[in-house]
């Protein structure tokens, strides 16, 4: 009987250590939205997690990729559709709009004023902080191709990789927290 118990405890210990090894103190987040408010929320959670010494990996996909364009960079050799998308979509985090109450841009510029007054950092400042904290940004290659974005026109960011869904999945699998914004 006691041998049985010991055996069971050993087995449980082994299973627990396997579980513990499987998940890290890591946050994986899909940033899908290209809206100012949602990207801001994503970056606040991300930098907060970094303050908790968590490893943070952001996977920018679809509309969110537009916020990672550098307004000062131009690239040549785009086809007609890519040029159209490039013109229609915001060029960089300074140009993204509110998801609600945008009112042809009035709401967005109002909220930016209120953010300043309340000492809430702008998206550009948040990206800079995120970079300093070692937060990784992974950009979905498929989304970039769909929208005709080239890697040469994306912002300079210290931990930036262009990759696919497998990267997100393997990061998410070993993360304690996974979010989609």
């Amino acid at each position, binding site marked *: 009987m006691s041998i049985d118990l010991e055996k069971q405890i050993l087995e449980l210990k082994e299973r627990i250590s396997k579980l513990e090894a499987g998940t890290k103190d890591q946050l994986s987040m899909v940033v899908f939205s290209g809206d100012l408010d949602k990207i801001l929320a994503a970056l606040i959670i991300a930098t*907060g997690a*970094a*303050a*908790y*010494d968590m490893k943070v990996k952001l996977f920018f996909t679809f509309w969110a990729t537009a916020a990672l364009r550098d307004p000062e960079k131009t690239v040549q050799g785009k086809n007609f559709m890519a040029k159209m998308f490039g013109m229609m979509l915001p060029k960089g985090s300074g140009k993204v709009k509110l998801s609600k109450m945008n009112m042809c841009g009035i709401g967005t510029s109002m909220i930016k004023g209120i953010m300043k007054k309340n000492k809430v*950092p702008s998206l550009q400042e948040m990206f800079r902080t995120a970079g300093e904290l070692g937060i990784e940004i992974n950009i979905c290659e498929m989304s970039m191709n769909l929208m005709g974005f080239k890697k040469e026109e994306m912002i300079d960011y210290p931990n930036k990789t262009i990759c696919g869904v497998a990267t997100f999945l393997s990061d998410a699998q070993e993360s304690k927290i996974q979010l989609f914004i």
Partner: protein
Amino acid sequence: MTAEELKNLKSNTIVDARGTACPGPLLAAKKGIGEINSGEIMEIYSADEGTKHDIPKWCQKMTHEFLGIIEEDSYSRLFLRKA
């Protein structure tokens, strides 16, 4: 710790995060804690109400000892001891 004990504490470092909103004070705390040694005391100034809830939670997770809060007129002083 009582307010009296807190007032007599000598902080090894003071982080002034009064000019920032969430997550500013938290990020300032993370930066500040890296600059002191284990057992030393850090004081955070914050004008952000949420910080009073956030910093004790953060301390719990990071195993720092949260010592208490002194309320000033327009801000709070939060004390903690580095683990």
